């Protein structure tokens, strides 16, 4: 059978018209996984039997004439740093290579309650630390558009799965761009919701003041459906916000007339590949031609975002990752003399280079004598970066920029130069520092590789982002182009 990439809402229509059963639909996606995942390497763990059992339950509901939710029977890939009850969850790390969670994350419970099937656990950079998926302890994920290139990271497996048709939707996590950058590299839609909009209960923590879970989808409509399913207050996450959840599909209107869009000039400056800048400029002109007002603006502290982000994220990581000590879960090194020796050996054998580097950078930034100059300084600059956005959003409904300064780079190109790797996040990290929502949508191609347009919005104003993104999508066909595999 010829494989065609469909969205969740198209599949939902087929399910309720009984053109296909949920079981057949899931089998089609698993056949696709069997056909392409040897090339792509999107999954660490596949959960075929669980998915088919869940799909048969959805089919019974349909046969009984029950109303099913928009994501019922839809196969979804879950980034492997999100806990799944009884299904191995590794965070891409050797130290958790045998960890089977005794509970599921709230987002997984919500998707299961909506009837979604879990296709498997998607590859990632170890503990979500990386921009290329090359830091996974298990396998290298490849970009479906060019398998010599990275899918981006850290949610590279989730993005590659959706782009290759090896999942219909996926969940990722975004601490400094880890949903938006791989979405951009793989030509799919990826959203980092407002900090606090989606529960993080069951997410393996990296940097707690920045981490947020969000969806990968093939179009903006699916993204709104996914956010509907996972957002909202959760008493199990004390940082989850108490806000009135809305139906985000209500914002899917083909109309940006009068919408005020700002383009921070710092995000279009040198350092952005000219081909990427050209594609993004054309996308901005498209929105202007559809009736939006597009103007250059400024976020003056942008150049300080990278050090600010790395100092804060690594300080938080050094504390969060202290729990991996070989006592309660994960691997334990053998042949230790005493408990301290056991901690040291376990952590040294269990963590990869990038994770060790970040733990040490964070520990250094928090250590006696350096705290004020590094960590506290970064927290103060974070205030200035956040105030830049507050000022811009007084005038503009949304801000627009590239997602990443380049298209997908080659596997191995940046792995030995951590600083170069960090620079690939320069357009996405400020969004996490300010806690605002960010969305990446496909907006064209440079050299045959996808380019993403980033939309940044006010806190809890995902709706306006959906409206602009939907309008762009209705008037372009980039989201309908798929990689040949």
């Amino acid at each position, binding site marked *: 059978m010829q494989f065609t990439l469909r969205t969740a809402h198209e599949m939902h229509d087929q399910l309720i018209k009984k053109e296909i059963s949920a079981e057949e639909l899931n089998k089609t996606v698993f056949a696709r996984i069997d056909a392409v995942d040897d090339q792509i390497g999107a999954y660490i763990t596949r959960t075929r039997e669980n998915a088919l059992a869940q799909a048969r339950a959805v089919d019974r509901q349909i046969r009984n004439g029950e109303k099913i939710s928009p994501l019922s029977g839809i196969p979804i890939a879950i980034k492997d740093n999100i806990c799944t009850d009884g299904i191995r969850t590794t965070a891409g790390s050797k130290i958790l290579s045998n960890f089977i969670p*005794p509970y599921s994350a709230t987002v997984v419970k919500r998707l299961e309650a909506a009837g979604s099937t879990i296709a498997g656990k998607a590859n990632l950079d170890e503990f979500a630390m990386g921009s290329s998926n090359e830091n996974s302890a298990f396998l290298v994920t490849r970009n479906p558009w060019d398998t010599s290139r990275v899918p981006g990271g850290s949610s590279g497996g989730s993005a590659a799965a959706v782009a290759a048709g090896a999942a219909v939707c996926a969940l990722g996590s975004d601490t400094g761009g880890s949903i938006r950058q791989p979405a951009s590299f793989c030509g799919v839609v990826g959203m980092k919701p407002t900090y606090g909009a989606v529960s993080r209960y069951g997410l393996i923590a990296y940097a707690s003041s920045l981490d947020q879970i969000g969806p990968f989808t093939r179009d903006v409509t699916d993204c709104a459906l996914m956010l509907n399913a996972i957002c909202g207050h959760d008493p199990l996450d004390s940082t989850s916000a108490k806000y009135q959840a809305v139906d985000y599909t209500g914002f899917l209107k083909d109309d940006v007339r009068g919408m005020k869009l700002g383009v921070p000039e710092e995000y279009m400056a040198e350092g952005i590949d000219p081909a990427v800048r050209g594609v993004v400029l054309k996308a901005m002109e498209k929105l202007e031609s559809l009736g939006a007002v597009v103007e250059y603006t400024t976020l003056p502290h942008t150049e300080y975002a990278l*050090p600010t982000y790395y100092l804060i994220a690594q300080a938080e990581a050094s504390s969060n990752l202290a729990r991996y000590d070989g006592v*309660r879960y994960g691997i334990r090194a053998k042949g230790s003399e*005493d408990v301290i020796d056991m901690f040291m050996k376990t*952590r040294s054998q269990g963590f990869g280079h990038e994770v060790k580097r970040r*733990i*040490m950078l964070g520990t250094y930034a928090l250590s006696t004598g350096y705290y004020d100059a590094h960590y506290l300084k970064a927290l103060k600059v*974070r*205030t200035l970066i956040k105030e830049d956005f507050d000022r811009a959003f007084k005038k503009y409904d949304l801000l627009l920029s590239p997602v990443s300064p380049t298209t997908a780079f080659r596997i191995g190109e940046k792995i030995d130069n951590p600083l170069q790797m*960090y620079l690939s996040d320069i357009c996405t990290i400020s969004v996490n520092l300010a806690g605002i929502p960010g969305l990446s949508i496909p907006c064209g191609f440079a050299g045959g590789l996808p380019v993403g347009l980033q939309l940044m919005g006010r806190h809890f104003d995902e709706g306006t982002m959906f409206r602009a993104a939907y309008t762009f999508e209705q008037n372009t066909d980039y989201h309908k182009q798929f990689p040949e595999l």
Partner: protein
Amino acid sequence: MITKKDVEHVALLSRLELTGPEKDMYTRQLNDILEHFQFLARLDTENVQPTAHVLPLQNVFREDWAGLHISREDALANCPDQEENYFKVPKIV
């Protein structure tokens, strides 16, 4: 400037045991990174309040009720070594 001795100290605080080549690599890389981050010091933040967290949340309370908890068996299921329902570790002193 971070010296190899600093790296050894930070590694000990982080409970990491580094090989000789790793110490050299991290000394070089952490220096590169922190040198690049130096320009943060230029910015005047004398009268700026730090932001640790972007949400206006403080002291989130809830009722102290007994809910459903993970069973002892499940909580110990991932444990590398256990004895009589306790996590077991090598000698401490």
